[in-house]
């Protein structure tokens, strides 16, 4: 080894390296006696990691397709095969990729097993059912009943979820022919806990004024916790990221100069308009700080509990599976903690799970915060349903309204 001290890698560099290694491992999984499981971004992936099964997220691959503006083309391929254009854009582009093989990243390996956790959404179950028929592989639905606000019911829901996780473990043992190692699972959960806490710390830096991060940073950096949680590399990554962002915060560096408007975003992003939205908002001194979506991976694993129980409790209670009332409270909590003063509420026609509540959430948030909110409809991945002029005009008009209000207060 050279005498020269190796320079510490930046989070951006690490992101690239870790992603490359992860994909390489996945592509050579079978050569190393490992298995590939497709899973949903919100799912107890720790069970796979501890059992040498490499989790692959068709959603992540779909995001890569949508960001590269391949959504409409891949979708049309599936529409010609009888799938309707109002289904989830992730599902449409993923199924389109299955037919065409077109991918911005060389594709993803085929599954040996599918796991769908419906705390995230119901669509994934149906989408994965299509994949299970196509590849003739088993599907396991981790059924997470709505996390209703009844303490007794919650105890029973956790019991049901734990019972299912035991069934999942048995299914994985059958798949691999290997006995499950719970000690290893405990170790993996510790890594997940540490990474999740650091990820949350990173997201919470949005509370600084000016904010050293925007939601667009979070959307880039969340990818690692989605597909590498449960590993020590994931913990190191978020430690590096937190150190970098903390340094910016300490120097008072914000992502937007003269930050005036600190906004909440409801829903998933419009992946193919990512940069345009950031620049438009920036020109008004506005920054989107956060959303419940990016907080979906801020887990709080309790390593003193039974590992299956803490997995069940965390995954069943994700924002998309709580009641509308509780979801509004979670959004308001972010709104207050980050001192936000406006909201962009996106009704995403291809994500029913997150969007159906948006009309009601808008009413609650505007009523409780006193700040106006903009609600608009489009699609997270299909440019055919994005009206450039209309949405731009509406966002501008909204920001001008906020400016007008700010001027009055001043």
């Amino acid at each position, binding site marked *: 080894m050279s005498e020269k001290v190796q320079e510490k890698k930046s989070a951006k560099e690490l992101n690239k390296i870790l992603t490359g290694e992860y994909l390489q491992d996945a592509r050579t999984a079978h050569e190393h006696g490992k298995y590939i499981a497709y899973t949903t971004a919100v799912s107890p992936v720790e069970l796979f990691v501890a059992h040498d099964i490499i989790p692959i997220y068709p959603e992540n691959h779909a995001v890569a397709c949508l960001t590269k503006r391949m959504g409409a083309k891949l979708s049309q391929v599936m529409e010609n095969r009888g799938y309707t254009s109002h289904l989830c854009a992730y*599902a449409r582009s993923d199924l389109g990729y299955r037919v065409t093989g077109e991918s911005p990243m060389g594709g993803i390996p085929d599954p040996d097993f599918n796991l769908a956790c419906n705390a995230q959404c119901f669509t994934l179950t149906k989408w994965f059912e299509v994949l299970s028929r196509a590849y003739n592989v088993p599907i396991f639905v981790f*059924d997470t009943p709505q996390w209703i606000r009844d303490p007794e019911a919650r105890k029973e829901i956790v019991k049901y979820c734990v019972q*299912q996780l035991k069934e999942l473990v048995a299914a994985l043992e059958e798949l691999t022919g290997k006995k499950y190692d719970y000690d290893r699972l405990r170790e993996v959960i510790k890594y997940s806990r540490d990474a999740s806490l650091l990820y949350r710390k990173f997201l919470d830096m949005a509370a600084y004024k000016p904010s050293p991060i925007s939601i667009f940073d979070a959307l880039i950096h969340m990818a690692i916790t989605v597909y590498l949680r449960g590993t020590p590399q994931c913990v190191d990554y978020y430690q590096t990221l937190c150190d970098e962002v903390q340094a910016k915060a300490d120097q008072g560096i914000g992502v937007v100069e003269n930050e005036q408007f600190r906004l909440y975003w409801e829903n998933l992003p419009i992946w193919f308009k990512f940069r345009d939205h950031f620049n438009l908002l920036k020109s008004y001194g506005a920054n989107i700080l956060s959303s419940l979506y990016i907080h979906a991976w801020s887990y709080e694993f309790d390593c003193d509990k039974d590992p299956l129980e803490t997995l069940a409790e965390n995954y069943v209670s994700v924002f998309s599976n709580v009641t509308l009332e509780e979801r509004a409270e979670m959004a308001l909590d972010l709104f207050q903690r980050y001192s936000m003063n406006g909201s962009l509420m996106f009704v995403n*026609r291809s994500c029913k799970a997150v969007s159906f509540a948006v009309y009601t959430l808008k009413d609650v948030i505007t009523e409780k915060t006193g700040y106006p909110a903009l609600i608009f409809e489009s699609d997270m991945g299909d440019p055919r349903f994005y009206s450039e002029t209309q949405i731009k005009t509406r966002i501008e008009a909204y920001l001008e309204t906020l400016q007008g209000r700010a001027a009055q207060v001043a």
Partner: protein
Amino acid sequence: MGTEALQRLVEIANDPYGRLADLRKRKKVIGSTLADVPEELIYAAGLHPFLILGTNEPISHSAALLPDNSCSLARSNLELVVGYEGDFFDGFVFSQVCDTTQHLSDIWKRRFPDRYFENFLAPRQVDRPSARDWYAQECRRLRKELEKYAGREISDEDLWQSFRLYNENRSLLRTLYNIKQEVPALMTNRTFFDVVKATFFMDREEHNRLLQEVVDWAQGEKGRYEDQDGYFKLIVGGIVVEPPNIYDLIDEARGNIVGDNLCTASRYIYHDVDVDGDPAEALADRHLRKPHFSPINEDVKRIYTDLLDLYREKGAETIFYVHIKYCESQDYDLPDIKKRMREEGIPLLELETEYQTTHIAHAQMKTRLQAFCESVLGRT
């Protein structure tokens, strides 16, 4: 057409809110949405279970509450209560089977803060032992919640009595379904499925009494309709057939529905609840015996194997699949169902429907159905 009893059932099926306007004077009315809420529990609590099946009125009141690409049935149900019949109900018990029904529950509850509201969190998988345990557990929870609301204990004997009443109802409906299949000239599809529909709304004892009269009449009359020529046998797949004049179109084409996997027909009338042992487990056992239901995960091939089995067992000529517009679950199933049927050489007609089907859409459906019968089934 048939007897006075039959007439009464058909009238109620087609105008439940008008014909049963005085229901609330006798019992508290608890509305539910499809599917799988164990009505037997609600009945045993001394309450009146009532299945909400939308309205054919245009969507206006619920437009601001659910996006226009949400399930037509969900929007229509919300439209019905928000715009028209909200006062008909004392409370609601909702089952959640998909994203739409889960959100609908929350929106509904917020809209009616003064009413009793309970979720029934049915398992969304039925492939593993945990599903049975969970369904039974939810039945126990619902039983306790209903006891609190009704202010009375629900004894096991109350439940068994309720099970017997519902079993009798299902048994009579099965008998009538068999007669209708055997003697299609005796009773149209529309009439039979109206009789089934009436049971979703009516007092079950009264329905049983009227239904028994209809079954007796049908048994007596069926010998007079021996000539069954001119009918073709079909299977109807889907969740629900609405608006009901889809049945009229099938009747006009002389189709005889000999099997289905609808929530509003076979999934409802087949399989009874055991009347001994633990009541919650008995309800769970019945639940697991039901035909496949699109949103509920199990063997992924059942989306078409159930239909194929019915088609072969009943000697049908075709399958009509009724597709609720914007039902995400069916949207994911349909391409694979169609593909499999093509591979099997089985003619399948998809009928896409909205609760608010206009005259134009109805005319288009009629044309499609006629064209299919002529060109595919060779019927003129």
